[in-house]
């Protein structure tokens, strides 16, 4: 039993190391003087971090950070807001066409995200919204997964009796939503919020085709672009990559439990 335990831990540790290794290499390489990178195997950190940091900050890297951040926050608010009210309607009301409409939403979850991309970009051009962040934020308005997730959650964890009694006490329907239902939804809101934030923060293709001004770039675009800005300064570019990945790791450390519960919760029951 003890030997078995030892080998299990050893095996898992090796797997963990293999998975964390690329991150480690990325962090370490960012602390080197570019020319030294190729002289030996960069295994231990070197002392060139601050210089590389200065180089990065001279580019519009902080700007990319800010763009990504506020786009992701607005995207998340829009996604969670619309998904919550739509989910509330589907979970707690009876109305004509309800099942057909909900089935329609579930069906659209099967449609791949890139199918309408070309016309979406054209549409944004017609609205004169290309080279703004609007196309990235508006995309959060109809998140089929979000509605599905919220409907399931509201159905199972918001007691109908509480809604009924609030109604008898004379509360309006929007009042019920904001004062009674939303407080129940906090766990679901934080999960869906994290997933949405992550999706927006990691997005690459949509910003790539709607934005071509460097000062409007979001972080993934900024990172991808670093190699052309610092063609010769290899390690500075890698430091940029590290800094771009760092917020995700921090977000993940704090939110992983919520996120994981949310990712698995909906599917596993089915």
């Amino acid at each position, binding site marked *: 039993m003890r030997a078995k335990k030892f080998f299990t*831990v050893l095996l898992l540790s090796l797997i963990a190391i293999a998975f964390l290794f*690329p991150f480690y290499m990325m962090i370490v390489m960012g602390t080197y003087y570019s020319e030294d990178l190729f002289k030996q195997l960069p295994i231990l950190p070197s002392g060139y971090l601050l210089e590389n940091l200065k180089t990065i900050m001279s580019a519009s890297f902080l700007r990319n950070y800010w763009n990504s951040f506020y786009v992701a926050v607005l995207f998340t608010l829009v996604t969670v807001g619309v998904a919550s009210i739509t989910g509330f309607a589907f979970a707690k*009301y009876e109305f004509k066409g309800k099942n057909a409409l909900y089935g329609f939403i579930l069906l659209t979850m099967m449609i791949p995200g890139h199918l*309408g991309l070309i016309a979406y970009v054209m549409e944004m051009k017609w609205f004169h919204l290309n080279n703004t962040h609007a196309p990235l934020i508006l995309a959060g308005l109809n998140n089929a997964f979000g509605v599905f997730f919220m409907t399931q959650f509201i159905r199972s964890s918001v007691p109908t009796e509480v809604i009924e009694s609030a109604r008898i006490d004379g509360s309006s329907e929007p009042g019920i939503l904001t004062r009674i239902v939303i407080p129940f939804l906090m766990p679901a809101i934080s999960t869906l919020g994290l997933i949405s934030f992550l999706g927006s923060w990691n997005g690459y293709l949509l910003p790539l085709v709607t934005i071509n001004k460097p000062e409007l770039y979001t972080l993934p675009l900024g990172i991808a672009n670093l190699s052309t800005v610092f063609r010769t300064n290899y390690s500075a570019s890698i430091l940029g990559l590290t800094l771009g990945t760092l917020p995700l790791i921090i977000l*993940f450390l704090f939110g992983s439990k919520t996120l994981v519960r949310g990712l698995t919760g909906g599917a596993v029951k089915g």
Partner: protein
Amino acid sequence: MMQKSNGISSKNKWPYLFITPYFLSYAVLSLFPILFTLYISLTDWDLYGNRNFIGLGNYTQLFFHDAFFWKSLLNVIIFMAVYLPALVLMGMLVASLIESKLIRRKTFFRLSVFSAYMTTPVAVGIIFSLLFDWQGGFFNNMLMELGLIQEKINWLGSVSSSRWVVILMVFWKNLGYFVMFYTAGMASIDTSIYEAAVIDGASSKDVFTRITIPLLKPINLFLIITSIISGLQLVEEPMLLFSGWSSGSSMVGGPDGSTFTPIWYMFDASFNGSAFKYGKGAAIAYGTFLFIALFSVVGMKWINRDGEDK
């Protein structure tokens, strides 16, 4: 009486108001683009103002005369044929190791495997292009140092090795996601089933193959179907792998198009080339969608039949 009828009518109005933002924005921002892309795919629409209706011209061109389209599809199918079974097997194995009673620090192991899934696809592509770079890449340097190779290998320069790098990359990124689902699935299996099996004298291998795997079937169905849908849409990771981060010159589709993917092709045809052929790009999008639908149906059928046999 007045009060009551008021209550009912307001109750009837509100659900429609609540779902309006969703369906309105869906119509404008999703449904319209999807249908309009279908229309574009039937035209020769490009940047220079051509927009003639040419019927199925783009599709016949794509399906019968375009080796690149088939190649890109074949590539993603090859990738999936290798990494999907690996993800399913390793995912179950790692999850059952983490969930076994022998392990205490479950969270640490879960997080370390899952961290790759959180990372921006852009960063994943770039990290791997750095690790497998010909001249300065860590992987070559390490193999040289260990004396395993005499000359540096150009991993991203040949057809088969660059495909392996993409497969490894997708595997690395997604294993944590699979492990998470299997973990949750294993946690939801009633422990009394296991206890009964152990009392009946089942070995841990029997328990795994006869109890755990069959009970994970709904999760497998979900993971495989969603992986097929997203696998056929693979684009950012291979694109950034060959974006020229380390080599300096970017390469569309990798060496000899060996890592070209359908959505990469769509992007290249409609936004990147010199021609901006929206019609062609739209046809690629719909052509790919056709295959996604086909593979999902076949996948579902296959998994269900597999279940009935047992």
